[in-house]
């Protein structure tokens, strides 16, 4: 009974906010907004949108960011897996990169910014000895007009995501056999992998890749930290319109959100074209029999991109940690002149409330999402129906529809309902994004569970609840806690939904950190970035150590 409710509730929770949110966005764009007496269909707002200065440049930036980010991240992952799957280095790099998955996008963006800025750590390390710079060079690196640093910030975060998704797909592909076959035909390691195994892997990770495109083409927080400021990417400009005191700007913002939908759609369409091109190229290569057996450089590039992406973030986080304890720290000193706890002490009172909200929203949305994910999986198991392509796409919907496009409309509904900036509304908004990740992370281990344990328990006369709580849940403790840690990490990292639904009254460490981003104060940002990093890590630590501790007596429960 309850688990039949699971899928229904999940579908409602995923599609409801998206459908209503999109309606709340699209209708005003076309002139319908009863609160402002907008009752007539009009294209005037779209016309206004296109008369905004440089709007097409903003849209173009978003489009390019979506495609380029996905392309580079995927390329790095592909080359790396091609060159190193099955080697010792693979495992090591995987361990290096995986923790980044739980790091909020904003924190990674800060890390990059404080590393590569003209006054950043890199310049400090080589100055003035190697560069002669006594003062930071007047170079436009962070916030560059082409969005290169923004895309770099996105790539370092998407690489771990796509790597993890690829790792999940790998066991379903006969990697070794294919490699031996292609090698015996004289193909290089990379070419053999790309032509032999990659198509099957790519089919499995296509939705995650689409999610990367959708996210990168509509990102707000990373854009605010690293993106161009004079001609900001579309989504970042939308958010300023959404915040305009003039309520009639909602029309313009809605029209912009509509454009954002089109831009993301276009980016996805463009990607589909790239897929075709890639398929055609590899077919051609196969027909021509190109072997590409001199691929050491490609393999090195794959490895370098992986190590670099992780190294950049870790080095940046270390820099931020220094900043948070820094007294005066002038260029080109590589270390602060003095260390002090003052920033931490001063921030303590003001960080408590965002911290509390972060924890509450994270824990509640994770709890609900976990229960729903388990109910869905139970239902699937019982009916013997695995979710089809359609259901899976549905699950990915919140990750494929640009956040600005529907959360903005959702905000309008929440205002009408009088629940904007309340904890339940915030939890609901987070749930939309936590739910898919919770489900996806539990799915594999759930199906890997040996159901005969359940049958044995049933044959021993134990009812369903007893079987679940005494057998399945304990045996799956680690998997369930890992799911919760993933969900919690997602919630901690959510920026836009928190800003729009929390409406400034409910703030999390992520929204606070991004709000401070424009001030460029490394000390304060360092403290927030620390919490952004710490909270998800704590989740994963719990998922690792708690089961190990509870079941320390039982060898069969160790990993």
């Amino acid at each position, binding site marked *: 009974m309850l688990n039949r409710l699971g899928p229904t509730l999940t579908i409602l929770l995923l599609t409801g906010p998206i459908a209503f949110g999109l309606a709340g966005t699209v209708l005003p764009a076309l002139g319908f907004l009863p609160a402002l007496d907008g009752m007539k269909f009009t294209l005037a707002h779209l016309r206004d949108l296109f008369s905004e200065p440089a709007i097409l440049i903003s849209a173009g930036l978003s489009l390019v960011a979506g495609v380029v980010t996905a392309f580079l991240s995927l390329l790095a992952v592909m080359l790396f897996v091609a060159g190193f799957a099955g080697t010792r280095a693979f495992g090591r790099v995987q361990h290096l990169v995986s923790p980044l998955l739980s790091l909020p996008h904003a924190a990674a963006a800060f890390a990059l910014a404080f590393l590569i800025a003209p006054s950043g750590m890199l310049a400090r390390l080589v100055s003035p000895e190697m560069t002669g710079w006594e003062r930071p060079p007047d170079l436009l690196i962070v916030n560059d007009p082409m969005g290169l640093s923004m895309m770099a910030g996105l790539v370092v975060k998407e690489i771990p995501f796509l790597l993890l998704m690829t790792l999940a797909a790998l066991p379903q592909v006969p990697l070794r056999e294919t490699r031996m076959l292609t090698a015996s035909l004289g193909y290089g390691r990379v070419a053999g992998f790309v032509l032999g195994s990659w198509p099957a892997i790519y089919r499995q990770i296509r939705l995650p890749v689409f999610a990367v495109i959708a996210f990168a083409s509509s990102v707000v927080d990373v854009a605010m930290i690293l993106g161009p400021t004079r001609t900001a990417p579309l989504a970042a400009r939308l958010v300023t319109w959404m915040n305009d005191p003039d309520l009639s700007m909602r029309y313009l913002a809605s029209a912009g959100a509509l454009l954002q939908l089109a831009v993301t759609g276009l980016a996805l369409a463009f990607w589909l074209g790239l897929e075709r091109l890639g398929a055609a190229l590899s077919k051609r290569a196969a027909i021509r029999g190109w072997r590409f057996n001199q691929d050491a450089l490609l393999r090195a590039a794959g490895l370098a991109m992986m190590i670099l992406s992780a190294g950049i973030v870790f080095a940046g986080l270390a820099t931020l940690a220094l900043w948070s304890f820094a007294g005066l720290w002038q260029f080109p000193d590589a270390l602060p002149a003095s260390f002090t706890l003052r920033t931490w002490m001063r921030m303590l009172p003001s960080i408590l409330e965002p911290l509390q909200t972060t924890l509450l929203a994270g824990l509640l949305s994770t709890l609900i999402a976990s229960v729903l994910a388990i109910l869905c999986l139970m239902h699937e198991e*019982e*009916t*013997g129906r695995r979710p089809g392509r359609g259901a899976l796409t549905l699950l990915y919907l919140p990750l494929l529809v640009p956040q600005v496009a529907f959360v903005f409309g959702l905000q309008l509904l929440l205002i009408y309902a009088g629940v904007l900036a309340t904890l339940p509304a915030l939890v609901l908004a987070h749930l939309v994004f936590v739910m898919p990740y919770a489900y996806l992370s539990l799915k594999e281990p759930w199906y890997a569970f*040996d*159901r*005969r*344990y*359940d*049958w*044995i*328990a*049933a*044959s*021993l*006369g*134990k*009812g*369903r609840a007893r*079987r679940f709580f*005494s*057998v399945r849940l*304990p*045996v799956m*403790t680690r998997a369930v806690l890992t799911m919760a840690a993933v969900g919690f990490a997602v919630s901690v990292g959510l920026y836009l939904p928190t800003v729009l639904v929390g409406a400034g009254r409910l703030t999390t460490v992520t929204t606070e950190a991004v709000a401070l981003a424009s001030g460029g104060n490394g000390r304060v940002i360092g403290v927030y970035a620390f919490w952004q990093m710490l909270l998800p890590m704590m989740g994963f630590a719990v998922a690792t150590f708690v089961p190990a501790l509870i*079941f320390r*007596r*039982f*060898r*069969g*429960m160790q990993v």
Partner: protein
Amino acid sequence: MGEEGLFLDGVKIALGGRVLVELTREVPPGEVLTVMGPSGSGKSSLLAYLAGFLDPAFGASGRAWVDGIEITALPAEERHAGVLFQDPLLFPHMDVAGNLIFALPQSLKSRAARRAQAEAALEGVGLAGMGDRDPATLSGGQKARVALARVLLSAPRMLLLDEPFSKLDMELRQQMRTLVFDKARERGLPVLLVTHDEADAEAAGGEIVRIGS
């Protein structure tokens, strides 16, 4: 019905319109019905149907009674069909005693009494004093015996055996066969054994049904 033992009345298992098994048989208390067939013949599905956890992909019909109770009308946990698989499937998060105590009916309330029963059951399979052990540290034969003790503690109405000896080595296999069938006879439990091992069927000594050949 009022009769003792297991009675299968027109039990039919089908997959995708193809009938795998169709069976009407009576298994008196303490006796063994052996169903033999190659893998994929549906013999395990028959067992799963009787135990109450057949994959919904299969179509099944027919009824089964044990001691006059129609078990096919009951949920799995009320059928009291003691199941043994080829793997012992001891719960990895409980010690040996925990596994056994878990099997005891809830009607037995006292902790001490539950503990004592588990100890006695261990003794009954020659594993006295092993209650505190982590199941992962037991040998294959010990695990199999704990699994048997666990099934017996749950006060089953019958035993359903799904190739329970196939993973044991020769010598152990013989011991376990004897142990299992002796216990079943001792308690007057009807047994359904599915296997592809002729020696199992021989040791069981009861009627043999061959399917899917």
